[in-house]
Every structure is written in structure tokens, then in C-alpha cells.
């Protein structure tokens, strides 16, 4: 190897590291910037003196938001939604994935059932029939409207059923010989062996319920029933605090202040940021399990 090549390689390495470091900072900077604004005084923020670090450090915005009943109520609705949605999604995912993971000789209608689910990936009735159906089943304005219609996440079912199939057959078979039925085998053997994939799918479910906002925008007639992300859509994106009744003009000015907006954005993202380290680890596994097999 000649000297010029190694020198070129060294310059490349330096350039490469620099580029990648800058790129990752670029990805992260907007989030840090908003956090810095939320912790700055509103005069500093509106004068544009904040970059990556708070100026005139203060918790005033957070103090204001965390005493606002609307914010707390939206937060409570989100918690309820996440809890109910998580329980339903996980239960139904496992219950659907296990029969579908069987071979046709063991479960003859398996292929028919599988197609029943796959068709929903390929075709949908669209927004309006979806809305009218939920309306007709009487769920509108109730928390169940956010949980029941999406209770069977088909992609998660596929992810889990692929994992179930990869489990060693012998364990299940020996349990059958010992007289266990399908229910017993599912709960006592298959589910405990599948914790890695269930943890991954469970985390996605939590995040997606936390993040969902559009369904509530359509299915809830009154902003008082909005979960946090829909509430943020209304306040931060739509800038329409008038939609929340019974507020004085000074309050409206305060809500729409830049620091307050920033603090609400950050509080909306905070739970995701907290579970992110776990998510990241499981998600890489989830990708490997799901999309790049075979």
C-alpha cells in the first residue's frame, strides 16, 4: 500500500466522521432548540436570542401549562387511551397470531382467515365510510372510538405470527402429549417464549397510541374529549385556543406565546424520549424480524 493511498484514507476518515457528526447534530438540533426556548424567558425567546441553550432560565412556561386544567385533562385522556389500547391490541394480536401461525394440515381454514386479514391491507373503504361506520356503532364521543376500531393491528399480527412459527415445534408437541390444549399451550408456552417480539410490538403499540391524533379530531365532537396529541394539534398547530371555551383574552395570549408553545411540544414528546432507549434496541430486532427476512 503506498503512502498517498493511506493519506487519502485518513483524510476520508476525518471528513466522514465530521460529516456524520454534523448530520446527527442537525437531526437533533431542532428538538434541543425547542427545549431551550421552552426554558427561556419569553422576552429572550421573541427577541431571537435563544439557540441551543436557555437564556434567562425559567420554568415559568411549564409552571403555567402544568396548572392548566385543559392540558391535564388531555393528558389523562391520553393515558386512558394508551392503557386501553395497549391491552386490547396486545390481547387481540396474540389471539389472532397464534391460530394463523399453524400449518394448514393442523388448522384447515388458516389460509382463508389469513386472507381475511390481508385484504384489509390491500383495500379500504376510505375516510368517509370509516367515519360513518364508527358513527353508526355509536362510539363517537366515547374513549372506545379511539381504541376499538383499530384493535387488530394487522401488521403486528403478521410480525408476531412469523415469530411464533420460528419457535421449535418439539416444545409445543410435548405439551400436547402431556394433555395440554391450545389455550394452555398458548399462554403457558408460546407467549412466555415470545417475550422479545411481544416487547417490541408492545412498545410500538404504546408509541402509536400516544402519537395518534387524527381519529380523535374526527370522532370527538368536543375538544374537551381530545387526547393530548389532538389537543396539541388544536393549540400549537392550528393556534385556535378559542375552541376551548371559557378563557379570557390574556390567557389566550399566554397560550399562544412562543415559550408556552415550545413547552407544550416538548411535554408532548417527553414520554417518547423517555422510552426511546428501549424502543431503539427492540426496534432494530423488530426490523430484522419483520422486513428483511428471507
Amino acid at each position, binding site marked *: 500500500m503506498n503512502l498517498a*493511498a493511506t493519506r487519502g*484514507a485518513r483524510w476520508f*476518515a476525518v471528513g*466522514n*466522521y465530521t460529516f*456524520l457528526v454534523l*448530520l*446527527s447534530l442537525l*437531526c437533533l438540533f*431542532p428538538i434541543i*432548540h*425547542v427545549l431551550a*426556548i421552552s426554558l427561556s424567558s419569553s422576552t429572550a*425567546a421573541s427577541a*431571537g436570542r435563544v*439557540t441551543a441553550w436557555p437564556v434567562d432560565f425559567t420554568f415559568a412556561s411549564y409552571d403555567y401549562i402544568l396548572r392548566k386544567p385543559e392540558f391535564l385533562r388531555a393528558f389523562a385522556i391520553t393515558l386512558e387511551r394508551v392503557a386501553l389500547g395497549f391491552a386490547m391490541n396486545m390481547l*387481540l394480536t396474540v*389471539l*389472532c397470531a397464534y*391460530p*394463523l401461525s*399453524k400449518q394448514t394440515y*393442523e*388448522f*384447515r381454514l388458516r389460509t382463508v382467515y389469513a386472507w381475511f386479514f390481508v385484504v384489509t391491507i390491500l383495500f379500504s*373503504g*376510505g*375516510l*368517509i*365510510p*370509516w*367515519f*360513518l*361506520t364508527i358513527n353508526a356503532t355509536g362510539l363517537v364521543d366515547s374513549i372506545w372510538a379511539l381504541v*376499538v376500531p383499530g*384493535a*387488530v393491528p*394487522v401488521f403486528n399480527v*403478521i410480525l408476531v405470527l412469523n415469530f411464533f412459527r420460528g419457535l421449535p415445534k418439539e416444545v409445543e408437541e410435548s405439551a400436547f402429549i402431556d394433555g395440554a390444549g391450545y*389455550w394452555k399451550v*398458548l399462554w403457558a408456552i408460546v407467549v412466555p417464549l415470545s417475550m422479545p417480539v411481544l416487547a417490541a410490538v408492545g412498545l410500538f403499540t404504546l*408509541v402509536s397510541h400516544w*402519537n*395518534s*391524533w*387524527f381519529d380523535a379530531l374526527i370522532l370527538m365532537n368536543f375538544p374537551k374529549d381530545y387526547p393530548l396529541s389532538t389537543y*396539541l*394539534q388544536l393549540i400549537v*398547530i392550528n393556534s385556535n385556543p378559542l375552541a376551548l371555551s371559557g378563557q379570557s383574552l390574556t390567557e389566550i395570549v399566554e397560550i399562544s406565546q412562543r415559550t408556552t408553545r*415550545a413547552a*407544550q411540544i416538548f411535554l*408532548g*414528546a417527553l414520554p*417518547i424520549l423517555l422510552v426511546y*432507549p428501549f*424502543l431503539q434496541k427492540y*426496534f*432494530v430486532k423488530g*426490523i430484522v424480524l419483520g422486513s*428483511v427476512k428471507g
Partner: protein
Amino acid sequence: MKSVKREFPLHLMLFPGIVIVFIYCYIPMAGITIAFQQFIPVKGLFGSEWIGWDNFKYMLDMPDIRDIVGNTLQISVMKIMAGLTVPIVIALLLNEVRSLFFKKSFQTLIYLPHFLSWIILSGILIDILSPSEGIVNQFLSLFGIKPIFFLGSNAWFPFTLVASDVWKEFGFSTIVYLAAITGINPTLYEAAVMDGANRWRQTWHVTLPGMAPVIVLLATLSLGNVLNAGFEQVFNLYSPSVYESGDILDTLIYRIGIQDAQYGVATAIGLLKSLVSLVLISTSYFLAYRLANYRIF
């Protein structure tokens, strides 16, 4: 008979899921008949008047329908192309990095925006891109550039959409590509070195061909999204001043259907979109199966 009894618990397990999917996925599919009706909610699906293709004719007569279809295609195709190429480049660059710690930290950082919703990211974008107080325009003004209204000018809006979509999603594909690179047999590199190949030629002749199946897979699967220009993103970032360049089919359906309550027309547009998507998704799965041996299960 015996096997029916044996299989019974499996049917029972599927039962609740089947009921929910039937009600909330299959009944709406039947609801597409609204597209052929002068639908009035109180009269219901069976009481409303049938008007044939009138809703479709109305749609074709809408003055901006061509622009909206054009915007949808333009935005989604740009997103697909940027979303395929940027991660390939980043994965190749990251593959040249020796430090495992650096690799891991970098992946963790670029992957974070994927998990934040478009509400959070739009809130951030609206703040940093603001022409009056946003930090991006503050930075540009250091170079004497006049404030750019990224979210309010038709010249900039589509590119803002594509760039912010890449920001949110490129971490995902980068990790998929890196996993593919890790799976390449190391003896291929050893053979290439024996043949006198430098890093650049190794990348060209070993790494890229090794990634090819995954690239083909992601490319074909993205075909199904040609009509999905990203409702959640556009809805949270657009305003009437950028309808000309940023209004897409899904936002149109929302405004006509939910805000104006013109159920028939909105369902008609949604039906056409669903039918085209059906063809695209089926084709993409078929191609992915043929080209990359991909099966959903």
C-alpha cells in the same frame, strides 16, 4: 368430525378479532356504495337516492383536481426517491466507520424523529422555519439571505415537505441497509483485497451488490405509497396560501368530506384512490416476491 372439534379453540381465538375487523374494515368497504349516492345520513345507506356516476363527474369538474393529483404524485415521488437514496449513502458512509460506539450512537440519534408524531415535528418546524422569529431564517440572514417563507410560499413548500420527511424517516432505512451490509459474507471482502481492490472498489463491487436485494425490496414496497403523499404531515404544515403546491388527495378528501359534509363526492375520490392503491400495493407485493423473494408471511 374429530378434527373440527380439535380445531375449535383456534376458531374461538380468532373470533373477537374477526368480528372487529369485519365491522370496522369490511363494512366500510361496503360503504363505498355511498360514492354512487346522494348520501344523506338520516336516510342511511338504503334510503339515500342513487345518482350513478354524478359524484365522479362532479369530481372531474372540480377546477383544481388536476393540480391536486399532480401535487400528490410530485410530492410522493420526490419523497420516495429521496427516501431511497439518502439512506444508501449514509449507510455506506457509516459502514466505513470503525468505532462501534460511534456507529451505535449515530444510529440512535438519527432514528429518534421516526418515533415523534407529525404533531410534535410540525410544531417544531413551524417554530424554526418562521420567517420572523425562526432560527433557520436567523441563520440565513447571517449570509445576507432574505427571510424565506418555507411553509408559506409555493416555490418552497414541496421541498420543505420532502426534506422534513427525510429528516423523520431516513434513520429507519439506514438501519435496514446497515443490517444488510452486516450480513455480507466477509470472505468476499478478503477475496476482493487479494485481487487488489481498494475501499472504493470494495464498496462498488461487494457492498452495493450485497445491499441490492434490500434496495430492490424497499423500492418495490414503496410503490404502494405513490398516492400517499403523507396526510398527517401536509395537514399539519399547510395553509390556504400553499394549496396550489401542497394540497393532496387526502387533504382534499378531508376538507370535502368532513368539513363540508359532501359525503358522496369525498367517498368517490377516496374510492378511486383506494382502487389505484389496490393495484399498486398488489403489484408491489408481487414484484417484491418475484424479485426479492419477500413474503409477508
